[in-house]
């Protein structure tokens, strides 16, 4: 089959690889009908997530048709149309029982590796480095889905692939980030990053009753997309001092919650960003916490910092003093997708949201190298690429 493979930093290729096979009785094989490139795939593309191996198949946002099921998978039939959550969960460990699926104890075959780095190991993730299990991803014609009796969501309504694909990651991710803000009537939510997750977080914050949502970015088409779809207020971080502007917009209080939908490769302006960029470039820190610092500085006392943006290692100059003395609460982590898929599918069915509004590029899988390039460089107005094998 054809698959998008990581062959080195800024080097992805479409390669011929063997078809996947069932390896466990709880596996299923999915024929991929639609897959997407996630912003977090760019961290792999740019080489900021360790333990990638040359030849690994990428992709953790995908859906398709069940073509083979293992003997222990009794809830799926051949021919079912399913959306697959990006994090793999066993469904029976303590964490799965608590619905903390992305913290599953059992799905990461390379748990020992993550334990050395993080103390304990999170769940395995499709196509997201060997630290996260080394599973082959879904930017391919076929993909093997472990614990297929737990994760995949059957979608048999008349909704199109594009409308339901993002249940695999970014819609639940944006939603969980907004939910973590514990939004009360009158709340103002600031969202850093108007990429796909940020846009979903903005939508979700309004769904959950936010009074105001302030979106922060500098890419014109992203700000435009954020504004077109909601009564969102915009802050352009190249032109304005974000922290000061946010405080002014809220009469000195600061936003009640701040969503950091950017992650380890944050951009910014001024000295602290230059410092982060330089330290990361010489590998003295793995992640750039530029946006996180601004969020901490801007957030109202007693507020929430919600972090759907991906971090992988260590950061420097983290203003813990500000966070401590303002009594901030931090909520973060990989999304417990399985918990949100069904209720969010209902919202799509009821017409509350159509997540396909973020798609800017529809390409064949063969064009993956080009797609990664324009997504990384934010060329051609690229916000979200979906690919058909």
């Amino acid at each position: 089959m054809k698959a998008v493979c990581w062959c080195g930093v800024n080097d992805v290729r479409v390669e011929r690889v063997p078809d996947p096979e069932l390896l466990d009785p709880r596996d299923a094989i999915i024929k991929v009908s639609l897959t997407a490139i996630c912003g977090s795939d760019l961290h792999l593309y740019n080489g900021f997530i360790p333990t990638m191996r040359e030849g690994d198949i990428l992709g953790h946002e995908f859906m398709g048709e069940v073509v083979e099921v293992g003997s222990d998978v009794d809830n799926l039939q051949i021919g079912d149309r399913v959306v697959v959550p990006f994090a793999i969960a066993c469904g029976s460990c303590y964490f799965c029982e608590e619905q903390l699926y992305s913290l599953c104890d059992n799905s990461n075959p390379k748990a020992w590796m993550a334990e050395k780095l993080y103390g304990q190991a999170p769940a395995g993730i499709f196509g997201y480095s060997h630290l996260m299990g080394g599973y082959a991803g879904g930017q391919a014609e076929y993909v093997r889905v472990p614990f297929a009796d737990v994760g995949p969501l059957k979608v048999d309504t008349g909704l199109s692939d594009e409308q339901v694909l993002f249940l695999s990651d970014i819609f639940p991710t944006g939603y969980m980030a907004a939910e973590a803000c514990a939004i009360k009537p009158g709340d103002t939510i600031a969202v850093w990053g108007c990429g796909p997750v940020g846009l979903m977080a903005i939508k979700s914050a309004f769904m959950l009753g936010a009074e105001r949502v302030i979106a922060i970015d500098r890419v014109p088409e992203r700000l435009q997309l954020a504004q077109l779809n909601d009564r969102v207020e915009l802050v352009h971080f190249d032109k304005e001092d974000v922290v000061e502007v946010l405080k002014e917009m809220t009469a000195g209080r600061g936003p009640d919650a701040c969503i950091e939908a950017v992650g380890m490769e944050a951009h910014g302006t001024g000295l602290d960003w230059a410092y982060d960029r330089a330290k990361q470039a010489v590998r003295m820190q793995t992640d750039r916490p530029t946006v996180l610092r601004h969020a901490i500085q801007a957030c109202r006392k007693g507020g929430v910092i919600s972090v759907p943006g991906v971090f992988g290692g260590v950061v420097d100059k983290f203003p813990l003093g500000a966070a401590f003395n303002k009594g901030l609460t931090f909520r973060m982590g990989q999304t417990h997708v399985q918990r949100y898929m069904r209720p969010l599918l209902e919202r799509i069915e009821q017409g509350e949201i159509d997540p396909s509004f973020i798609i800017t590029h529809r390409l064949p899988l063969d064009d993956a190298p080009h797609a990664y390039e324009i997504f990384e460089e934010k060329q051609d107005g690229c916000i979200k690429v979906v690919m058909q094998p």
Partner: protein
Amino acid sequence: MANPIVKQKEASVNVSRGERWVSLAAGSALALLGLTRRSPAGALLAASGGYLAVRGLSGRCAIYQMAGANTDHLEDNTGFAVEKSVTVNEPVEAAYAFWEEFDYLARSLKQVKPSAGDEWESGLGRRALSRFNQLLFGPKPGWEVEVLDRRENERIRWRAHTDAGAESQGAVTFQEAPGGRGTEVKIRFAYKPARSILGYTAAALGNEIVAQQVKEELRRYKRILETGVLPSIEGQPSARRPAPVEEQDEGAEPAAGEKQLVDEDVVTEASWESFPASDPPGWRDGE
């Protein structure tokens, strides 16, 4: 009961007989070699050799004492000690019964054998790990296990040895975790490596590797108990070529000059699916 004073005296000897002879011989040789060289390095050599020789004569090793090691009297808390535990999301009865059924005791003592799902081993390099275990426990380990006592749903204590003189003694205990969080399963044991200088070196330098192997064994136990499978990525596709095996299909050779990606982790043994059938435990209690 033994006389406490006698016991005290015995306890201060912490080096086994075989090791004492090796220590005495090697130490004397080093000391002589050191004395023939009239240099600071020679003095150091002589001093180290002298220490080894005295250690061999007396059977007392200050370094072992500091490390809590004892190769003479193997009890639960002497020798090279390993302690690892895991929480399984099952009641004590199920955790204990599953352990018995699959004979994890014998399995975890067995020489490590590559099987699908042993991701930790493949990460380290299976050959290196297997080599390490051979140094440590002997070329043909095959542990002889003797159960000292077993209390249902509480603990199993055992003693074991290999042909090469490696010994181990310890227990696996089962205890209810607080707040309905399942069962805490703990392995505690002490071991003496195979009777060779290499065995002792391997143990002194690589006890962490032994501990990690026990930890991985506990992880496998937990995963099979909780999910019925052992999640693995072995056998999944990638753009890496499988590592060359004999009778490589010539048609599969990539064009000259093309970059070749080779998978180094080779699976040569039976798959996990066939466990435990392909992999009979070396020992069964009461049979």
